[in-house]
């Protein structure tokens, strides 16, 4: 019978003030062990100040085939970027 330790996704906050970022995954029996293993596997060189672990099966992900419907609508909305607007130099910093 297979009794493999579940898979956890690991997120590390690199420095104070930065978001947690996905760094990889690992196997562990429970969350406590997952954090300890994440410490050993992903922060051997001071890469982190905080660790999140999430059971991999709890991650919901968008599907590659939805790329069009999800992201195309924003492509035509260039006015969302400040550089869209021409402001004369005389106005000063803005």
């Amino acid at each position, binding site marked *: 019978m297979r009794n493999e330790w579940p898979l956890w996704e690991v997120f590390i906050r690199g420095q104070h003030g930065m978001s947690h970022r996905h760094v990889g995954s690992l196997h562990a029996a429970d969350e406590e062990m997952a954090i300890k293993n994440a410490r050993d*596997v992903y922060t051997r060189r001071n890469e982190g100040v905080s660790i999140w672990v999430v059971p991999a099966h709890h991650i919901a992900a968008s599907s590659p085939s939805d790329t069009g419907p999800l992201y195309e609508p924003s492509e035509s909305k260039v006015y969302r970027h400040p550089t869209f607007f021409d402001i004369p130099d005389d106005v000063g910093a803005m």
Partner: protein
Amino acid sequence: MYAQMIKSEATQDDPEKLAAFQVRIDAGDKIEPKDWMPEGYRKTLIRQIGQHAHSEIVGQLPEGNWITRAPTLERKAILLAKVQDEAGHGLYLYCAAETLGVTRDELTEMLLDGRMKYSSIFNYPTLTWADMGAVGWLVDGAAIMNQVPLQRTSFGPYSRAMIRICKEESFHQRQGYDIMMKMANGTEAQKRMAQDALNRMWFPSLMMFGPSDAESVHSEQSMSWKIKMNGNDELRQKFVDQTVPQAEFLGLTVPDPDLKWNETKGGYDFTGPDWDEFFDVLRGNGPCNKERLAARNKAWDDGAWVRDGLMAHAEKKRAAKLAAE
């Protein structure tokens, strides 16, 4: 190179999808686990990343052999950190392989029963402390040669694992060379040990790149899928060109009487390794094949009660927590 002789899998996919896939690869897109990919791409990658991961794990054994006998406390701490890194590298790679739909236990079992291979280099013994120097300098040096271009491989998780590994690997090579410098500038006996280590590790290190491209039937498909970035001979040449001056700096002699600088090609002419020996080692007849696999099997078997026990404990805790809610 930790992945040798990776047999590429034939693929029987819809030609239209295959062509579209190749366009993505050629455009430099990264392929992610949920993207469509040819069956051959998936299977070849499982084999390649798996073999790479197994090499990291089995590669801990020849060096672990010297942890308790390192000459100083500092050397011991450094070697321990290096061996721990190898474990980490194995884990990054297993994770990357798992995104392709194979489980960790399946990968482990395929290593343990011999269905999957690891690099031939780890079937050679580490007889003296100088071997720790030679392994770091030559074996990790050869690995880096292959791993640096693999950072650009087309499969996202593999590429990301390689980026992490490369960041850490240069410490490995430098600590090896540091040991060699110490020995080569030490007593006559130490110098002899350093030369002896180079003599024994040189040709097995050249084997790490795999047989000549002329005989590698599987390279072409892997190259076009960008899961193999360079030819075996090209990397071997690069390794020799980089390593020979480093040996000269140490005052050591590369054990190849025919080694000669070739001005026209801008590289060294050198003797290739004994490929009969290489294939014999792959078949399981190297000096340490049996010992290495026995050690991995023992670790897996001895650890079974721990894996089961911790799982049972986790389930008990979960049940208790649920009951309390």
